[in-house]
């Protein structure tokens, strides 16, 4: 052991020296590194281009400048091949890992689905009414609206009832995943600028990349069915939740956070006692957004064979049956209203508790 340390000493000091130099001429080094990477990319592109696209000798590039007119075929960065092979490698080596996730989510989904499908439908409606009534703080109007929407799901077409339950199960599991991962990530982002800087581009990517780009690898990793839909929901719906959690925490009045710190609260105490409770309305808004986006995603996911209300829309589309597609569309809207009303009214109730504005007037 001692021997190795002796051996590493000069190496470590060399690294420290290099680190020092890099730190001193940071901007200079950054420029050099980026240019090296860029040139390296171009060389890779050139080398991997097919011979028939390339000039006979690369010095020809500098003699004949016709390639400046149209984009030359040899100036092509090869991303597809390595991604494919990387993906294959992932499946071969970490297949077990993905299968584990798959089994877990699928198990959760089937249990939940079988339970809800097995329940008599009036009981399900009663359950929804019960949840709404208490989540909205005993608001009758919201409860009645939600109850009617739930009833109309089955009333539109008896076929829809079970399919809606499947969709709801997928959305709920997707949301659960979003909440379990999204909120802690949002909190980490709000508290650490570096995490924030690292995550923001990833969130942008998740929001802008077309959903089919991750649906297809989803199928390869998890097979057809509910699980790739859940994963797709996660990718699509978690960014707004993360963003709104981050925003909510950072929007908490600075003086209030300072007050908490000034009285000797640890970071954990400040977070749980002050920041999270005050950010809750925003976080609830994020969860609400998350739900809406999950529902939108579930329809798209039906294209990769996910069972649910989405495949009724797809079926209508394929048969050019306007009525069928519209009917299923209405069912999705009703589902959206149910989810929205429940999460929204719960958020409002939280907001009321933190900011009792109504009663100020009484005292003024």
């Amino acid at each position, binding site marked *: 052991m001692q021997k190795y340390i002796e051996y590493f000493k000069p190496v470590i000091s060399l690294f420290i020296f290099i680190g020092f130099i890099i730190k001193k001429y940071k901007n200079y080094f950054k420029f050099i590194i980026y240019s090296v990477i860029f040139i390296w990319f171009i060389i890779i592109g050139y080398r991997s281009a097919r011979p028939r696209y390339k000039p006979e000798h690369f010095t020809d590039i500098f003699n004949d400048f016709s390639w400046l007119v149209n984009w030359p075929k040899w100036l092509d960065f090869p991303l597809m091949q390595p991604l494919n092979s990387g993906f294959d490698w992932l499946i071969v080596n970490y297949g077990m890992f993905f299968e584990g996730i798959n089994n877990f989510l699928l198990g959760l989904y089937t249990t939940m689905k079988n339970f809800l499908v097995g329940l008599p439908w009036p009981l399900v409606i009663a359950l929804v009414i019960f949840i709404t009534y208490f989540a909205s703080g005993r608001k009758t109007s919201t409860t009645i609206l939600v109850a009617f929407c739930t009833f109309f799901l089955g009333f539109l077409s008896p076929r829809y009832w079970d399919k809606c339950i499947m969709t709801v199960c997928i959305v709920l599991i997707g949301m659960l995943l979003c909440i379990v991962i999204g909120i802690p990530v949002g909190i980490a982002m709000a508290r650490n600028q570096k995490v924030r800087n690292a995550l923001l581009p990833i969130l942008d990517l998740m929001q802008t990349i077309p959903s089919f780009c991750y649906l297809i690898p989803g199928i390869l990793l998890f097979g057809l069915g509910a699980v790739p839909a859940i994963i797709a929901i996660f990718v699509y719906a978690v960014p707004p939740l993360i963003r709104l959690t981050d925003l909510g925490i950072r929007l908490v009045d600075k003086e*209030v956070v300072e007050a*908490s710190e000034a009285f000797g609260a640890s970071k954990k105490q400040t977070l749980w006692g002050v920041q999270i409770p005050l950010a809750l309305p925003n976080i609830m808004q994020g969860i609400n957004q998350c739900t809406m986006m999950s529902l939108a995603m579930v329809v798209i996911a039906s294209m990769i064979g996910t069972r649910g209300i989405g495949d009724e829309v797809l079926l209508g589309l394929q048969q050019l049956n306007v009525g069928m597609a519209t009917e299923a569309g209405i069912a999705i809207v009703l589902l959206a209203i149910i989810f929205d009303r429940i999460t929204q009214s719960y958020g409002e109730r939280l907001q009321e508790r933190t*900011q009792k*504005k109504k*009663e100020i007037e009484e*005292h003024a």
Partner: protein
Amino acid sequence: MPKIEIKNVYKIFGHSPSKVLPMVREGATKEEVLEKTGHTVGLDNVSITIQEGETFVCMGLSGSGKSTLIRHINRLIDPTAGEVLVEGTNVMDLDQKNLIKFRRHKMSMVFQRFGLFPHKTVIENIGYGLEVQGIKLEERNKTSMEKIEAVGLIGFEHQYPNQLSGGMQQRVGLARALATNTDIMLMDEAFSALDPIIRSDMQKQLIDLQAELKKTILFISHDLDESLKLGDHIGILNHGRIVQIGSPIDIIMKPADDYVAAFVKDVNRAKVIKAKIIMLTPEQFKSKKEKNSNTIKVNEDSFLDEFLPQVCLTPATVEVVDKSGNIKGYITEKELSKALTKSQADILTKSNTNVGQ
């Protein structure tokens, strides 16, 4: 040993403050630094000593670094250079754990916009300092109720802060700071957001509490009248630099520069100067010739405006007495006129006016 000692503290805001520090040390002004480097100088070589049991008011206009200064003492802000000593320990030497302990037991803070937790009731707000210390609910509520009583908020303990008026909210802030029973209180423009009548109420309440509790208070204010009323010593900040430190009388009678002079120009001196400050000792008085037959007895701690109308009405010599009635000194019209005139130059131009304001 002084309770709080701030030694040559510099604070520069920006992305690489340590590079700018030498420039500021060499005496570059705030504007120069901002123009050349894009850094903002918060504090520029500030040194303050606060003795135990005194109220030190730090005064300056907005942007002069007052709020930055107060946040150095409990290290809500870290200084770029310099030392902050509280009871002899350098707060910069504390690690995270000790810093939390230090904040819990050594000092408490009152905020300009109250800094109350909107999701907690009044009693929970007041008990927060104890809550983070891990004290049990019953004990916490007992202490909180005592403090609620002390600030006169009985009956409001289960209200939320937003249901209270500004003055009441700041009372909650004050009670919260008192609840942890720390020696030091930091008050960051505590009364600035309140309207004038409530503000003077709160000032009075603070003075009464202070007479009883004898805490060490660092009070930040932009209001000179408030500073003069509350402060045992006043430090005036301008552009992050300390311009003058002294007792209220020093500040009024001997302003260090034009900035301070401009501040004190419009002060009603009669409201600030106490009888004992301008009185003649009995020996000095005996040697004087002019004597009025009438005399008025006043307490040595009373302000001039409390007995000025009487003197104007019937020319009289003022006998200054202490609490038990012993004669401590005398004030004649001459001393009064001297104390109330703005400056020597003013006397020359306005030859006939003896009493200022």
